[in-house]
């Protein structure tokens, strides 16, 4: 039986410190693990790193999304996880990516991301989920090179 497609969108605060090179190392590691695990679990999605925050979307069979999210919750490399959206989805937003990535450690703050994150953590805007999703969309497309790294 094919399981229903679910999507979660969340953001969190980065708990990585050190020089940019070290952070890049951590990120590469997270991405490598994600891609390995997600392909196996039929999960696709995208991860954004900006302004010392993560935003991520995971989409796939419900049980797999829940299991993956639970693993991510146990990860001390971030905190203050705020779920913006979770529920059935009609189609994948990132069918091509086991985990697309956007972000430039050490780069200047991205003003667009800043606005979206502030709204999301404040938890007051019901549209935060789709705003973050839109942000991920735009940025992941723009930085395909990173995603393929």
């Amino acid at each position, binding site marked *: 039986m094919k399981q229903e497609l679910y999507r*979660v969108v969340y953001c969190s605060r980065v708990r990585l410190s050190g020089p940019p090179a070290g952070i890049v190392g951590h990120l590469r590691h997270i991405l490598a693990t994600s891609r390995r695990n997600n392909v196996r679990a039929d999960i696709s999605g995208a991860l954004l790193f900006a302004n010392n925050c993560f935003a991520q979307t995971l989409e796939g069979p419900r049980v797999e999304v*829940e299991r993956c*999210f*639970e693993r991510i*919750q*146990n990860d001390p490399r971030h905190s203050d*996880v705020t*779920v913006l959206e*979770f*529920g059935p989805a009609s189609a994948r937003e990132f069918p091509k990516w086991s985990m697309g990535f956007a972000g430039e450690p050490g780069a200047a703050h991205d003003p667009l991301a800043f606005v979206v994150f502030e709204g999301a953590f404040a938890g007051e805007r019901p549209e935060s989920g789709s705003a973050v999703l839109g942000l991920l969309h735009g940025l992941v497309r723009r930085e395909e090179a990173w995603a393929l790294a």
Partner: protein
Amino acid sequence: MLRAALLGLADGVILFDPGLRLILCNAAARHRLGWVGAPPRRGLTLASWLDHAGGLDPAERSVIREHCAALLAGDAAPAPGRDSAAAEKDLAFGDFTLRLRRLDGQGIMISLATGGDDGEAALRDPLTGLGNRRAFQAALAAALARAESEAALLLLDLDRFKHVNDSLGHPVGDALLRLVAQRLRASLRAGDTLVRLGGDEFAILLPRAEGAEPLAERLVDLLSRPYLVEGHLANIGVSIGIARAPADATEGGMLLRRADLALYAAKAAGRRQFCRFRPEMDARAQARQALETDLRRAVALGQFHLYYQPLLEVASGAVIGFEALLRWAHPTRGMVSPTEFIPLAEEVGLIVPIGEWVLRQACRAAASWPETVLVAVNVSPVQFADGARLLRAVDEALAGAGLSGMRLEIEITESVLLHDAAETLAILHDLRGRGVRIAMDDFGTGYSSLSQLRSFPFDKIKIDRSFVSEIEGQSGGKAVVRAIAALGASLGMTVTVEGVETEAQAHFVASSGGHQMQGYLISRPVPADDVAALLARLPARTARLSHETRDGI
């Protein structure tokens, strides 16, 4: 060979000789009983054997001791009238059964029936796969086996779990508990013991005194992170109490009690945090205990009194009723404030008999007043938990005093409607059926919502005193009073303003559409005996009481 066979048995077997000295105790028995220390030697007395059975509590130990003695006594001289064949006794202890069997002239055999389970199952919580309460007792006894043993105990209680369980259903609640168990398990080191004590309570026992606080801090963060479970998003938190051995206690029961006090403090401090046991918590618990003891006696000793504060009708300036207010005069404590003893009375259930006393007393007092004057009585949310009893108490109070239901007004707070609203509304309608008026007290302070006001045709809303005290200031008190007064009027409810202390406030209440007012400006609450004098000073209203609210409800 027999010995070897018995020792290797999957069922737990223990043999004692006629002098109640140990012959044999196999591994399965030791395991199931939560054996503490090295395997027992032959010749051990029953009493010291029991001391090592960490999975048994003191009551269970003494039951076993008594029955072994009784079986042996029966062996020596079967009592007349007693079935001499009663050579066997099953003792059921919660999740497992011990069978004691007298071996003719040979002593006693104790067996632990596994009942199809393996020995592990008796120590396991089936939902999470963690150890259960019994495993915890054994671990606690083992950890504190020596006086100088170091250990730390963390008691965990999930915040808001009940809410999730109620709103998303038990299967989701169960799945959530499994995720919690998983997160906890992932945070522990080898040698740490993690158990589920029941419901949403967990315990962690560390075989060291240090390191409990960093762990607790991590767990508060970790368990508060969101959960995706069975297609739902769930947010819960955790409160944690910590006690350490040997600093806080050297004995298991005491360590547990002190961790529990610390847990209580963590919850009282606002949840989602951990608290370490501090000696003053013992003192506070004792003070609370003493207050509870006094409270239990107070009704019988006649230490409660009702004071009555008049409710004034703005339009006519007449007294239309009195609110009955509970006062506790304790011989050594003096006047104890209701804010101090009502929450405790609610917590321990004493509010029910106290509330019934108030109803009886208030109705009796009102029976001696002019017929146009009603009495208002506060009823606690706890009393609504047993609706049948509340209705009976109201009926008896009215009948006992010969008072018409129309002269009784019951004041409830918004929180009454938070729990089991359907049940509560049914009780309110039953009260209304007796002619009793229903007032919403302290309006605007708690969870007030329009939908609550609409859920029942309240006769009255009482605007909380906090807004009134702000009337003269710059803050929004005025606007709030005006808005609530307009709201009440539009819903056909009488609007009463509490806490009126100055002429200026009284004028404002009158000009903004409040129907009734209450407060020191009119009169402080007075003892029952002074009501007559007060009514001589302030006119009682002359119109007869009738049901003024909307029809058809």
